[in-house]
């Protein structure tokens, strides 16, 4: 099925081939949520919406790649222009492509590797957490996902978006993102995260906490991250 040009950001809340999405405002953070469980999709959708995110929820890694335009059947890496994705949150255990495999595919893509990917799992297995973090996952959330988990994500998503906004105009966000990426030399996810206290993601604390990275990823520039206005620009340095 031809996807290019058949879906435009002008459509409103339409269901297209298993996707449910609403158009993205240039100011809003857009999250792509991936989970094969309908119950979990409903919950994560609501959690994200209540924290003022736009959400596209899909039921498989394959659909996620299709949405991004990274489907293997296509050579072009151009996705839906205007539907920039600021964060991908995915379940680990899914039939077909696991969240880990999806993570790898995203990190292998030059266009999308800078998008933070968060893994969710009902199993608190250290080896699994380590593997995901080493592959470049931004964070790992143990299910069931709570509002506090999503609020924490919101903080470093905002930074990602605002970093790309150089005031050069809102037309093509992906271009802005790419130009920003070029200016910061290493292509890894860490370079686009401003928190200076960010340590290597492959060495989380070995305690069985729900989110091993929470201490290293919490933004030092926002004193009480849950209270401060989410949309306020809070960059520390841009390099």
């Amino acid at each position, binding site marked *: 099925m031809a996807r290019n040009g058949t879906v435009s950001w002008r459509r409103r809340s339409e269901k297209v081939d298993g996707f449910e999405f609403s158009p993205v405002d240039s100011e809003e953070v857009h999250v792509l949520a991936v989970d094969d*469980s*309908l*119950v*979990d999709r*409903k*919950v994560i959708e*609501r*959690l994200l919406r*209540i924290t003022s995110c736009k959400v596209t929820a899909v039921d498989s890694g394959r659909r996620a790649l299709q949405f991004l335009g990274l489907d293997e059947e296509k050579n072009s890496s151009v996705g839906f222009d205007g539907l920039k994705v600021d964060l991908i949150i995915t379940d680990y*255990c899914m*039939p077909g492509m696991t969240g880990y495999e999806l993570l790898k595919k995203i990190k292998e893509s030059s266009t999308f590797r800078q998008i933070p990917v968060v893994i969710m799992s*009902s199993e608190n297995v250290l080896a699994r957490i380590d593997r995901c973090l080493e592959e470049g996952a931004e964070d790992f959330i143990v*299910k*069931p*996902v*709570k*509002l506090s988990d999503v609020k924490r994500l919101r903080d470093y998503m905002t930074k990602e978006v605002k970093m790309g906004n150089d005031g050069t105009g809102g037309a093509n966000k992906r271009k802005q993102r790419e130009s920003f990426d070029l200016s910061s030399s290493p292509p890894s996810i860490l370079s686009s995260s401003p928190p200076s206290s960010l340590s290597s993601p492959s060495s989380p604390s070995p305690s069985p906490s729900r989110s091993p990275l929470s201490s290293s990823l919490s933004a030092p520039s926002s004193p009480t991250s849950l209270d401060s206005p989410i949309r306020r620009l809070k960059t520390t340095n841009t390099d």
Partner: protein
Amino acid sequence: MLGLGADRLRADMNRLLALLFHQGVLDEQFLQLQQLQDESSPNFVSEVVNIYFHESEKLLRNLRGLLMEKEFADYKKMGIHLNQFMGSSSSIGAKRVRNVCVAFRAASEQTNRAGCLRALELLEHEYCYLKNKLHELFQIEQQRALAAGVRYPMQN
């Protein structure tokens, strides 16, 4: 008069919730769902729970179907169903159902068919109890909203 009815019904709701928490039938994830319900999404909890019921009954049918097979051997498939059931139960705060799934999965990993059958019966029992109680809860909530003069869409 209407106000008093609403208050009493709210008290009934809270009493039922407290009981379910005390029995370990529900845990704090259910409260989290309630916190996500507001004017913009006034039926969120019942919507999610109804999806959960629908999916759970399918899973239970699948599990029973598997175990009733004469030459049953597909413990792996059973494990997949159980993981799904565990996940969704955990997501809505159905603690006891989830715990029975854990025990069920252990029996399945040991390829203990008799143990699986026992676990399935317990699971069906726990699920039934949960469903009845949640229906009761939603009914009280509906009546309370009516009594309080709020327009509230009927659930079926």
